[in-house]
């Protein structure tokens, strides 16, 4: 970052005058803004869960707090169990969120009628909205009860009953789509809001830019949540962005950009609430940068030891979002170890049940291969289906039951 600051600083403007103002002024202001945007970080809780001096605590009821705690814990347990299944060869692929769970709760302020266009690393958002562990695990297994009929790799969920839109692998495609949903909301004159998630690496895509541009101009009710977890597979954030922060990019689109401690669930909710309010009130889009850290590999296929020091994730463990929330619940007097044990047990039991059923189910029926390509299969798909049905069945080399 020092290098980048130098770049800006090194630009010397020597002219002055009335109309011909030294560009140094705007340069300096821009630099200051960028620097501020980097330094400013909404935080409510310290690393132990104590409220920081002077911080305003967002209004969240005890019940809600416990439900949030429950959800974060659920993500962690699910992640742990699923990765173990993956390591045992039971599951082809998995992606964890370890350390990033709080950022998922950006969806806290949303209503049932709002829409979410997620990326692949926001399990907590799904669980918060009511996506069940059965749905979740059936999707991972791509079995006959998978809500998307075994059509996509693990972690590519879709739940139209929740207005959670089908996850795509090509990163960033959901961002302009979210703007389209929000433009639709505006056209229809509702007070609904669209929220979309993506990683900081994904902010480098053209999709991010066109989405931000469309949103700025249309003032569509959309909230952009950039999970800055420091890494895009092996590429560190400094190789994605020479600006002071990701939130600073909002300046270029005429919308507010906000940085929040993505490991502090209270701060995340506070910032998300403000952004959702703004959108709902017709005040337009907001870019939120949730500053967090991907403490494990990118996915089950990754080995981060090749490209980063082990000490890095260790340092971030200090800021663990569950630890901090736990501390806060204690402060607030609504935590007990027994409670946490019960929650864990409940989730573990539910996972075991869901897993047992999921792995007992076969793949969807072969004829489903040709469904949903179009509303009705045209002749060539009928022909291809008939052909395939006549073939001897191929063994599924990956079948786990």
């Amino acid at each position, binding site marked *: 970052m020092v290098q980048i600051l130098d770049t800006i600083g090194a630009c010397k403007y020597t002219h002055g005058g009335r109309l011909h103002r030294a560009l140094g002024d705007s340069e300096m202001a821009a630099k200051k803004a960028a620097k501020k945007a980097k330094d400013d970080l909404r935080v409510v809780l310290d690393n132990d869960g104590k409220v920081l001096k002077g911080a305003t605590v967002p209004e969240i009821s005890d019940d809600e707090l416990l439900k949030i705690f429950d959800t974060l814990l659920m993500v962690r347990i699910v992640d742990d169990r699923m990765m173990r299944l993956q390591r045992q060869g039971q599951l082809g692929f998995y992606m964890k969120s370890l350390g990033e769970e709080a950022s998922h709760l950006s969806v806290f302020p949303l209503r049932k009628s709002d*829409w979410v*266009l997620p990326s692949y690393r926001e399990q907590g958002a799904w669980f918060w909205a009511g996506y069940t562990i059965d749905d979740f695990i059936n999707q991972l297994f791509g079995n006959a009860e*998978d*809500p*998307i*009929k075994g*059509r*996509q790799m693990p972690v*590519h969920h*879709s*739940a*139209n009953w929740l207005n959670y*839109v*089908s996850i*795509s692998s*090509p990163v960033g*495609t959901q*961002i*302009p*789509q*979210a*703007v*389209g*949903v*929000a*433009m*639709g*909301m*505006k*056209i*229809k004159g509702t007070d609904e809001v*669209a929220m979309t998630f993506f990683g900081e690496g994904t902010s480098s895509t*053209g*999709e991010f*830019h*066109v*989405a931000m*541009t*469309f949103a700025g*101009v*249309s003032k569509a009710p959309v909230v952009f949540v950039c999970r800055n977890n420091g890494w895009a597979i092996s590429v560190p954030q400094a190789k994605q962005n020479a600006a002071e922060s990701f939130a600073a990019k909002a300046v270029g689109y005429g919308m507010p950009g906000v940085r929040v401690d993505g490991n502090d669930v209270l701060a995340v909710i506070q910032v998300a609430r403000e952004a959702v309010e703004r959108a709902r009130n017709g005040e337009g889009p907001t870019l939120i940068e949730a500053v967090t850290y991907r403490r494990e590999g990118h996915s089950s296929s990754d080995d981060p030891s090749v490209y980063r020091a082990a000490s890095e994730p260790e340092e971030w463990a200090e800021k663990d979002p569950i630890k901090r929330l736990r501390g806060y619940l204690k402060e607030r007097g609504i935590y007990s170890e027994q409670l946490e044990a019960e929650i864990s047990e409940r989730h573990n039991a539910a996972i075991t049940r869901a897993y047992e059923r999921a792995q007992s189910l076969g793949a969807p029926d072969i004829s489903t291969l040709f*469904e*949903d*390509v*179009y*509303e009705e299969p*045209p*002749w*060539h798909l009928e022909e291809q289906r008939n052909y395939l049905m006549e073939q001897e069945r191929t063994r599924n080399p990956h079948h786990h039951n």
Partner: protein
Amino acid sequence: MTTMNIIQAVNNALHIEMERDSSVVVLGEDVGKFGGVFRATSGLYDAFGGDRVIDTPLAESGIIGAAIGMALYGLRPVPEIQFADFIFPAFDQIVNELAKFRYRSGGQYPCPVVIRTPYGGGIRGGHYHSQSPEALFVHTAGLKVVIPSNPRDAKGLLLACLRQKDPVLFMEPKRIYRASKGEVPEEDYEIPLGVANVVKEGSDCTAVAYGAMVPVVEEAAKKADAEGISVEVIDLRTLLPFDIETVVESVKKTGRAVVVHEAPKTCGYGAELASSIYERALEYLEAPIGRVTGFDIPFPFSLEHEYMPNADRTLGAIRKTLEW
């Protein structure tokens, strides 16, 4: 009935459908007050306002991305891509997103976006105002591809597209945008997708084309007639799913076929059409199927007239099937 050209017919269909269905939204570059660089959206802004006729920023991936979002949300967006040559920045949104949304969501999220775009050469447009990229989209499972060749079809096909639930690439033959004029019913009507039009019956050779190549083939057929060769001319209208029955029936009757398109030959639509015919009618074929196409070069400027398939080249190919 009134006389309309293809632009007017498209415009008329959009007017009718926007009137009938308040969820129809038009978006794209210059489609608003200006009414589109070819004037296909002319008058829509005044009639339906800036909420439903949206001048977007200059970014095709944003246009299609936003259209997808609108469709997911329940609207019926009709994005315009100013020239088919400029569709490629949106290619990912079209082939990886639009085409796959219904499938990948297990049927949860249909995505009825109808993309309109003028395509094709013959207007001195050079590389980037002349391309015919239809084959790329026909190869993309999940899309339908429709190309009208005259005003009547343009209106009826577009209305049909707007009333079904699959994503469609609706490619408009800009070379004959104004030149192709004809009687068009003023009322609301649909021409079903997937049904070809036998433009002219014949017994010696089947010539299949679509869009701006239909009049070229008709001209060739007329010239052939003068030589005593009877050509059956088929206007495909829908490229995917295409009307294999009509085509194969015709070839079984004539025993010969040529396919004509402007796009480069290699891996062009003609390859598919020919292969499909061979597979179903090999024993009926008296000669190899002729492919009259653009060349495997970027679309040229000064020598465009030598690049474009014309009646003579088509006639030559027809003759060849008879002389083989």
